[in-house]
């Protein structure tokens, strides 16, 4: 599984306008909804926040992977956002982590799709296990550059 099979430059927002976690989630949902003609944006944001409430998806590598399983989608839909600002995780009980890269996705609720859902999570974590990647991406100014850098990283991984 490759992360770049699930995104194109049009699904990458660089730089993010919002500077709070909730603001970023709304911005990304809005972008994804317009790209994929999804109707109920409020419901999508609610699904993401509910999932975040049960356990934060901020990771120490400087990324967050907000995600949710919803019946409105038939396939996994990914949207990515990059910002030079450190966005703080506001969840209570969570470690004080910050993120510069947001890799949001929605996946179908069917049980048979959950395996792919988990593999995508693992793949995102694997791509960003290179700790140089987030600082590099946060300095980039276009979606194409971000997409290309992730492609390079995935190519390196498959060569290894």
């Amino acid at each position: 599984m490759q992360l770049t099979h699930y995104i194109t430059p049009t699904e990458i927002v660089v730089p993010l306008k919002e500077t709070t976690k909730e603001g970023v989630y709304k911005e990304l949902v809005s972008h994804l909804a317009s790209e994929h003609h999804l109707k109920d944006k409020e419901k999508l944001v609610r699904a993401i926040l509910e999932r975040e409430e049960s356990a934060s998806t901020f990771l120490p590598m400087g990324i967050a992977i907000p995600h949710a399983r919803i019946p409105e989608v038939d396939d996994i839909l990914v949207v990515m956002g990059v910002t030079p600002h450190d966005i703080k995780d506001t969840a209570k009980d969570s470690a004080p982590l910050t993120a510069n890269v947001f890799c949001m996705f929605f996946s179908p609720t069917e049980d048979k799709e959950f395996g792919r859902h988990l593999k995508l999570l693992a793949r995102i974590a694997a791509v960003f296990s290179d700790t140089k990647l987030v600082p590099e991406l946060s300095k980039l100014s276009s979606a194409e550059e971000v997409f290309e850098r992730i492609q390079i990283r995935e190519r390196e991984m498959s060569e290894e």
Partner: protein
Amino acid sequence: MNDQMAPYRDRTTAVVITTAMLTFISFWRAAAVVLCDISSTAYYVCGIAEQAIGKAAPWFIALVMVIAYALRTVYIESCAMFVRAGVYRVVKEAMGGTMAKLSVSALIFDYVLTGPISAVCAGTYLMGFINDILSLLGFGAWAIPPTSGSVVFAIIVTLYFWRKNVIGIEESSGKALRIMSVTAAMVAILLLWSAVSLILDPKPLPPITPVVTPEAWGWLNGIPWLKTIGIVGILIAIGHSILAMSGEETLAQVYREIAKPKLLNMKRAAFIMFVFSFMFTAVVSLLAVMIIPDDVRANFYDNMIAGLVMYLQGPLILRLIFQGVVVLVGAAILSGAVNTAIIGSNSVLCRVAEDGVLAGWFRQPHKRYGTTYRIVTMIAAVQILTIVLSWGNIYLLGEAYAFGVIWSFTTQTLAVFILRFKDKTPREYKVPLNIKLFGIEIPVGIGVVFLALFFIAVANVLTKTVATKWGSAFTLAFFAILVLSELHNKHIRKVQADKHEKVNLRFEGELTPERCGCKKKNCVLVAVRDPLSLYHLKVTLGRVDPRTTDVIVLTIERMPIVSLPGGEGKVEELPHDDQLLLTNVVALAEKHGTHVIPLVVPAKDATFAMAKVAFELGASEIVVGKSEQVAPEVQLERLAIAWGYLAAETGRRITVRIAWPKHELKYELS
């Protein structure tokens, strides 16, 4: 952007829990350990029984072997109920602490004498053989005084097995298996050679009616009319042959160490024990009485099998060589019985100590070997004292020894009978012969075994005067010690019994399969946290094949672990909750007979630590229970992220299972 990854780059440190109690043995090894106890009696039981009841002794020894097999079914039922199902636990459950302490005291009397009688008997065989050889070579004047020689030999053997038991049971059970393999070969040759001898020179079967000597009537000598009742004579005859039946308690103690599938393996071990002990103890005794001429047999009462060999058909040189084999095997198997006595008494006293009756000091594991060396040392010391005080008198030791055997078996059987009514939980195994009357199940089988044992025990009390005097005195004295010790414990500690598993800790600065003790092809990591929620561990232990898979039981400790001086320490250095968790983990591992390697890893992020340990140990599977905080799907997501991060450069895959009652989620992560 600060370095948020810094804590995740730390080396994984761990505390490895090491304990001999987590090692499991095959049913062959289990049978061998117990057979060293049971079969060793073949070397002296016939001589002692014939002195009391005449030539009919082998028939009664055979009957005792059958009773022993029936009793074994009672032990199987109790072991299936409680993994640590010795007399103490079962009697306590059924009849309370006082009866349990009395039963244990009688049993310890048995163990204290099993070692000395076996060791002295081995010495007697060996001294006899050495003196025969010296005499044959013309050095008769150099003959070793048999009694002193056997006493010295007995002390050396006891000290040897004391040392072996301090090192650990795994090595000891291996030795028992080797001893029994050689013994089996010797018995096969002996039976075959005896059969050929009987074909060449047929002899009549011994009479079946016992001729009880006046001494063997004991205190019943004063009641002449009793001698006219046949059943009384039969009970007394069985009573004088009962020392052929020991080792059942050892089987119960060894049960906790029998490998998976536990109950089936116990039944296998029990059957092997029956076949072997019947052929060796009963059939060889019968052959000895048939083949050794009546007028010389009394000379061989202390070494009957050696005598049997000397009266087989064939050249003298062959008989002498085989006598040498018999003596060497005898020395080994009787020495093995010394080992079994130490193992058995150690296990029994461990249970008593766990219950707060004996001070926790006794259960403190050896710093290096993890064994309860203080109990082992205490038992060995009492055995050596017994050897010295009795000065190698086999008849005296044998007569006294049966007291503990019969009373502990009787109380155990009564306890299992009572538990049928008191504890209605479904049994994995039941002694056969159960009849339903008006909706109530009557355990006829256990009842018959109990009555048989009870009447034999009463007959023994009335006829074995030496055994009754010494046995009662020892039992009451030991009982008093246990009661006083328990009172003292309660007084000084004012706490509940210390039932936590006593184990050793070893600090590892770096985690590798070798340092954790992983030896199998596969490795499954089971993460545990709540001592009362171990369903997922139970399911895993029931599923994995311990021959091919190591089971790592991982606990994540959020608090930093106090550094252990010299890299080693005791269980008390773990937080109290972890001690309870570990105790329950060990109990489950014992129940399934599956070896586990408990690890405690300090970490702030439990999910990441779990994945990291699995990665570093090359585990093929992670098993976790259902979290109370988050949904199982979220648990899986967290693990997927952690695994993805760790395995990014290797592409390694792992299976993750989340198991809780009636549910299981299973996914492969890569």
